[in-house]
């Protein structure tokens, strides 16, 4: 009689553990499907869009091409907040790279976003700037 009770008790316990385990695993599975990476990437993408808009509208990109000097772009990149890294490369309309600048102290890239902005310089020639941004 005591043996039977013990077996039922053991089976009941095993059954309870299995059900609880399945439930907990299902919860972990659902929670693992959520991601915050998208929001992080959106942030750095929007920073790239804003940066390029500023640099185009205040003629920094145009001046850089016309003087072949990236000092102001470099200063702008260095003024980005501590955790943000960025690289700006200027290209001709036929995609030949002509100038490039990268934030000082930034090297490795995990996940990065890329934004493009076109501009006109040097007697109506067409260029575009490519900004790659990532978290430090």
């Amino acid at each position, binding site marked *: 009689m005591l043996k039977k009770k013990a077996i039922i008790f053991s089976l009941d316990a095993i059954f*309870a553990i299995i*059900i*609880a385990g399945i*439930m*907990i695993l*299902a*919860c972990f599975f*659902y*929670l693992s*499907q*959520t*991601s915050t990476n*998208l*929001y992080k990437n*959106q942030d750095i*993408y*929007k920073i790239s*869009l804003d940066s390029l*808009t500023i640099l*185009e*509208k205040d003629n920094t990109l145009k001046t850089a091409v016309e003087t072949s000097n990236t000092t102001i772009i470099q200063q702008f990149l260095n003024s980005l907040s501590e955790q943000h890294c960025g690289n700006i490369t200027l290209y001709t*309309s*036929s*995609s030949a790279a002509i100038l490039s600048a990268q934030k000082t102290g930034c090297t490795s890239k995990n996940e990065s976003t890329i934004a*493009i*902005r*076109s501009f*006109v310089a040097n*007697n*109506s020639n*067409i260029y*575009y700037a*490519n900004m790659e941004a990532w978290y430090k």
Partner: protein
Amino acid sequence: MNKKGILFTITTIFLLLAVFLLSSAYLTRNQELQRTATLSLAGDKLSYIEDDITNNIYSDLLSINLESISRDSYITVVFNHSNLTLSINHSQLIQDYKTFIENNYSTLNNLDIELTGFNNNFSLSPYNSTFIIDNNMIYVYTDNPNNINNIKLVIDVNETSNTSQGQPTNTGDIGVEVNITYGGERFNPSANLDPIINNNPFYINFASGSRIEINFGSYNNQNGVLRINASQLKADISHFEFRYNLLSEKVIIKGGNISITSSIENITKQTEIIIAEE
């Protein structure tokens, strides 16, 4: 004792079920937020692309800038134009830009962009004036030239000595004032002209063989056409003023149209290129 056990089991099952449902709801909500965020970003991106392509592009490629639009007893629109010369092919510059945007730029942004009616002219409504900048020539066609009250031009040319100059006689009631400076000299005639006849031009011939000429009147079977021709010289038009009779509608200066399609998010943005509005 048995009852307590059953109660404990049921409570545990309900608690586990609650945690399970909560995590499931969290996942669903998270996915919805991601979808919303993705669409919002796509919308931001299309607006950014539109601004990038259209902002200041007529000024950059056609070298014409709007200075002001003012409304009192007339509507006065003032532009300036630098570098009117044969060596700049405005039509080609616009075509090159259109090609770049529709090919390289579209590919780089993973979008399908189309510019229609995008060329070396723009229109001013409600007067239906069309401004065409073509190499060393500027043409302004106006559907109803009786809406024009006065035209004023201040032009500086890179010449020094003139050989002859001339101006039209008064034929109508649209005032045209011209002020041309060259090598420290000034030529500032004016005349009241009839838009439906082929009036004589305002002109200066220079010793180098170059000539600046301004016509207003009938041209190519259209009345009230203004033409500025900087032949073999470089002209800077520091003041290019059109004064129109008052109409209640808002003044809008429009270029072509732009269509941006993102095939990934299945969104299309189509809009007119508004250069400026009152």
